[in-house]
C-alpha cells in the first residue's frame, strides 16, 4: 500500500518537475546553447545582432511598424512618481521615461543633449549655458521653458527640500538662498525663454554629469504653488500626468503594473509603439511570462540562475548581459590599527580568488576590477588589470612581512537581502582562513549594518557601491574629507596622494586633461587597496525578438524607447 502511494507521489513530482524544467517541444537542439559564449561578450559592445542591424532612423526604414502594446518587467513597485523623491532604481527607470533632463547619456556612456539642444562652458569651467529646444512640450501641451529649469534647480536647492536626490554642486548664491536672503539662487539665471545659465564658484568637472543624472525638470506651472516641504505629497507623486518624456502616464494598478501611452508630441519623435505596460514581476514569474509571450523585455529583474538563462535561450528572445550599475566590495576599516599597513590590505585582495567566485556564484556573469573605474569606462587604466591577482602564497608572505598577528580574530559582516552577496561571505571567509587570517562571520539586515558602519564598529564588511554617475570622480568615497559624517568614506581611507589627485581631477573640466590624472589615481587605489572590489555583476536583460531597436546598454535600455517597434 505505502509503496504504491509513494510511486504515485513520485510520479506526480516528476511531472511537476518536468513541466517546470522542460523546454517547449519542437525546439531545435542547436538553439539551446548554454550561455558560455554570451559571457565573453564585453558589456559596452553587448548589442544583440538583431538590434544592431536595425539601428537606423525610423523614417528611413519602411518596415517600422506603428502601434501595438509592449510589456516590460520591472521587479519592484514604483514608490513615488516625482523623480526627486524616489528610492528604488525601478522608479528611477520609469521617471526617466516620464520626465526629461537637460542632458542624458548616450549608449556609450558619453553625454548627449536632451532637453538642452546644446550647451556652452566658459573657458574657466565655471559658467554653463544651456540652450533649450524650442519644440519641447509638457504632456498638457504647455511649452517647456527656461523658467521650468530654473524653478526645478531652485526647488532642489531650497532649504526645505528633503528629496532623495541631492544637487551637490558649488553653484553661486546657494548660501544666501538657503539663509532666506534671496528668493532664488543668484547663480541660476534665465537669459531668455530658451536659455538658462548656471554659474559655479569653482570649476567642477562632474557638474555636467550631475545635470545629466540627477535633475529631472519638473513642470513649474503645475507645482509652484505647493510649499517645498510639502512637495512630496503633491498629486504628481501619484498621478504624474504632466510629464515631458516619450511616454505619458495612464494609470498605476497598485503592485501590479503601470500603464503608459506614447507621447505624440515627444520632441525626439513620437514613439512607434502605442502602449507601454510595466509589469511588476520577479525573475521566476518573468520567465513564465516570457514563455507565454506575456512579456517583451526585462531589465533588472534580479539575478537569474544559469538554468533560467539556458531555458530562456530556447525561447524567441535575446539574452543580453550588460554591466550593471553597482559593484560589490569587501570593505576594510582602514582606521583599525591592524589594517593600517597596506600590505595587510593587499594580502586580503591576493587571498581571494574572485574569478572562481564569479564563476561559482554568478555563472561568470560579472566583471572584475581592481580600482575605482570599470573596464568599459574611457577612463579605465589597463595597467591595473593584472594587479591583485589570486595568489595565496603571496598573501601569506605579505601578512608575515607586515607582522600580522595570526591569532587575531576579525569579523566579517554582511547584510542579508542580496543572495549572491550572502553566499559569497562564507567563501571569502574560507579564502582568508586559508592564508591564516581568523575570520568570524556576522550578518544582519542592511539597515542595521548601516548604523554600525556609521559608528565605525566593523572590521570587514560586504556592501554594494553604486555608480550613480559615470564620472570617474571618487571624492565622496575615498577623500580624507569625506569620512562620515561628511561623506561615504566609511572605510576611513586617507592617503595624501589620492586626495591630491582627486581634487586635481575635480578641478579639471577638460576630459583629455583629466584622463592622466585618473590613470594615476587608479594605480594608487589598486596599490593601497582601501577596499577590495569583488565583482561587478552583469544585469541579464532579456528582449523578445519581436521587439526591435530595444538595445540594453550600461546606461539602461530606455534611452531610445521612441525608436522601438514591434515586428510580428
Amino acid at each position, binding site marked *: 500500500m505505502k509503496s504504491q*502511494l509513494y510511486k504515485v*507521489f513520485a510520479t506526480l513530482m516528476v511531472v511537476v518537475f518536468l513541466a*517546470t524544467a522542460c523546454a517547449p517541444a519542437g525546439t531545435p537542439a542547436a538553439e539551446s546553447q548554454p550561455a558560455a559564449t554570451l559571457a565573453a561578450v564585453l558589456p559596452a559592445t553587448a548589442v544583440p545582432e538583431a538590434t544592431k542591424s536595425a539601428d537606423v532612423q525610423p523614417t528611413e526604414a519602411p518596415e517600422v511598424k506603428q502601434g501595438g502594446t509592449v510589456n516590460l518587467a520591472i521587479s519592484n513597485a514604483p514608490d513615488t512618481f516625482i523623480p526627486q523623491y524616489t528610492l528604488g532604481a525601478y522608479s528611477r527607470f520609469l521617471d526617466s521615461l516620464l520626465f526629461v533632463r537637460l542632458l542624458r547619456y548616450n549608449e556609450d556612456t558619453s553625454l548627449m543633449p536632451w532637453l538642452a539642444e546644446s550647451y556652452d562652458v566658459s573657458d574657466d569651467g565655471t559658467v554653463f549655458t544651456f540652450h533649450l529646444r524650442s519644440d519641447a512640450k509638457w504632456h498638457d501641451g504647455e511649452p517647456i521653458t527656461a523658467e521650468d529649469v530654473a524653478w526645478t534647480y531652485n526647488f532642489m536647492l531650497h532649504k526645505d527640500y528633503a528629496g532623495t536626490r541631492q544637487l551637490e554642486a558649488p553653484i553661486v548664491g546657494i548660501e544666501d538662498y538657503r539663509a532666506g536672503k534671496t528668493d532664488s539662487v543668484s547663480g541660476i539665471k534665465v537669459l531668455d525663454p530658451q536659455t538658462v545659465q548656471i554659474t559655479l564658484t569653482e570649476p567642477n568637472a562632474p557638474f555636467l554629469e550631475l545635470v545629466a543624472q540627477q535633475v529631472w525638470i519638473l513642470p513649474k506651472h503645475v507645482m509652484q504653488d505647493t510649499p517645498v516641504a510639502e512637495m512630496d505629497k503633491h498629486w504628481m507623486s501619484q498621478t504624474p500626468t504632466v510629464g515631458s518624456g516619450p511616454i505619458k502616464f495612464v494609470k498605476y494598478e*497598485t*503592485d*501590479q503594473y503601470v500603464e503608459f501611452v506614447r507621447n505624440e508630441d515627444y520632441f525626439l519623435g513620437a514613439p512607434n509603439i502605442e502602449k507601454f505596460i510595466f509589469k511588476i514581476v520577479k525573475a521566476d514569474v518573468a520567465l*513564465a511570462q516570457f514563455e507565454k509571450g506575456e512579456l517583451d523585455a526585462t531589465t533588472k529583474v534580479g539575478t537569474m540562475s544559469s538554468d533560467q538563462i539556458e531555458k530562456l535561450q530556447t525561447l524567441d528572445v535575446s539574452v543580453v548581459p550588460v554591466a550593471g550599475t553597482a559593484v560589490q566590495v569587501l570593505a576594510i576599516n582602514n582606521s583599525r590599527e591592524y589594517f593600517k599597513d597596506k600590505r595587510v590590505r593587499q594580502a586580503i585582495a591576493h587571498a581571494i580568488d574572485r574569478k572562481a567566485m564569479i564563476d561559482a556564484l554568478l555563472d561568470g556573469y560579472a566583471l572584475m576590477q581592481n580600482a575605482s573605474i570599470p573596464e568599459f569606462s574611457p577612463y579605465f587604466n589597463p595597467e591595473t588589470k593584472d594587479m591583485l591577482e589570486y595568489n595565496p602564497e603571496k598573501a601569506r608572505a605579505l601578512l608575515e612581512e607586515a607582522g600580522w598577528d595570526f591569532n587575531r580574530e576579525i569579523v566579517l559582516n554582511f547584510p542579508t537581502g542580496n543572495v549572491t552577496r550572502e553566499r559569497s561571505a562564507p567563501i571569502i571567509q574560507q579564502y582568508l582562513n586559508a592564508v591564516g587570517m581568523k575570520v568570524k562571520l556576522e550578518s544582519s539586515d542592511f539597515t542595521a549594518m*548601516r*548604523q554600525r558602519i556609521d559608528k565605525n564598529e566593523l572590521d570587514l564588511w560586504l556592501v554594494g557601491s*553604486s555608480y550613480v554617475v559615470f564620472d570617474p570622480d571618487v571624492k565622496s568615497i575615498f577623500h580624507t574629507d569625506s569620512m562620515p559624517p561628511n561623506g561615504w568614506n566609511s572605510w576611513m581611507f586617507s592617503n595624501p596622494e589620492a586626495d591630491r589627485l582627486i581634487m586635481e581631477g575635480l578641478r579639471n573640466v577638460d576630459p583629455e586633461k583629466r584622463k592622466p590624472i585618473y590613470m594615476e589615481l587608479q594605480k594608487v587605489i589598486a596599490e593601497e587597496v582601501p577596499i577590495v572590489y569583488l565583482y561587478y555583476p552583469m544585469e541579464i536583460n532579456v528582449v523578445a525578438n519581436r521587439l526591435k531597436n530595444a538595445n540594453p546598454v550600461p546606461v539602461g535600455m530606455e534611452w531610445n524607447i521612441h525608436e522601438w517597434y514591434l515586428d510580428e
Partner: protein
Amino acid sequence: MATYLIRRLLFAIPVLFLISIISYVLIDAMPGDPVSMMIDPTDGLQAQEIRREALGLNQPIHIRYVKWLGEVLRGNLGYSLVNSWPVAQRIGERIIPTVTLMGLALIISLLMAIPIGIITAIKKNTFIDYIMTFFAFVGVSTPTFFVGLGAIFLIAVKLDLLPTSMMQTPGGEFSIWDRVQHLILPVSVLAFHQVAVYTRHIRSSVLEELGKDYVRTARGKGLKERLVILRHVMRNGLTPVISLLGVQIPHLFSGAVITEQIFVWPGIGRLTVESVSLRDYPVLMAIIMITALLVLVSNLLADVAYAVVDPRIRYK
C-alpha cells in the same frame, strides 16, 4: 450575554493601547531607520539629517508616540515614510484584493474540508482515508511557492488555460470573467494548503465524537447511519471549525505574502513585508493595529458563536 459583550468590548480598549505601545517601542527598537535606506550613498550624511528632521524622526520616542496616537484617534493614520502617500490609502487600496483572495480561499477550502474531514473520519483506515491523508500531508508540507510556480508553469504556461499572474489583464477594461480567470490559480493554491489543514482538524474532531456514548445510543435505537452522522455527529464535530474561523478572520486582512508575490497580487501581505524592510513605521503601525483589532473582534465573535451552537456554554 449583553453585559458580557459590553464588558469584553470595554476590555479591548486597554488591550489595544497596550499593543500599540509595545509595537511602537519594538518597531522603534529595530536597528536602522527609514532614512538610511532612502538616501543615495553618494549624497552624504547631511542629506540624511535633513530628511530625518523633515520626517520628525529626530524627536524622542515618547513624543513621537503621543503625536502618532493623537493623529490616529482623530482618524488620521499618517503618511508613508517611503512615498508620502496617505497610509489609509496605501492600505485601503489593498483591502478588497486581499479580502477577495483570502475570503474565497477560505470559503472554498471549508466547503471541501468539511465533507472530506467527515468522510475520512467515517472511513478511517480505508483506502480513501489513506489517499486523503496522503494529499493532506502533501498539502501541508509543500511550500506555497512551489505549488504556485508549479501551477503557473503547468496550467498557465504549458496548458495555456489561465493567465500567469496579476489581478486583471494589463491595459484591459475590468470585467467579472477576467477577474475570475485571474483568481482561479492563486485561490486554488491557497486553498490546497488550507484544505489540508482543516481536513486534519475536522477528521480528528469527528473521530472523537464517533466514539462517544450518544453516538452508540443513536445507533442502538436503530437510527440510520446517515442520520447519525448528519444530525448528531456533525453538529458536535464541527465546533472546531468555529475556532478555526476565529483564527482565520484576521488573516483575511493580513494576506498571504508568498502567494501575493508569486501571483503579483496587490495584497496587504506584500505591503507588510515591504514596510518592514524599508522601516516604514506609520504603515507598519497601521497594519499591526488593524490586525490586532481584528484578532480581538474575531475571538469575541468565536466565543459568541460557541455559545450559540453549544447551549451548555453560558457567559456571565
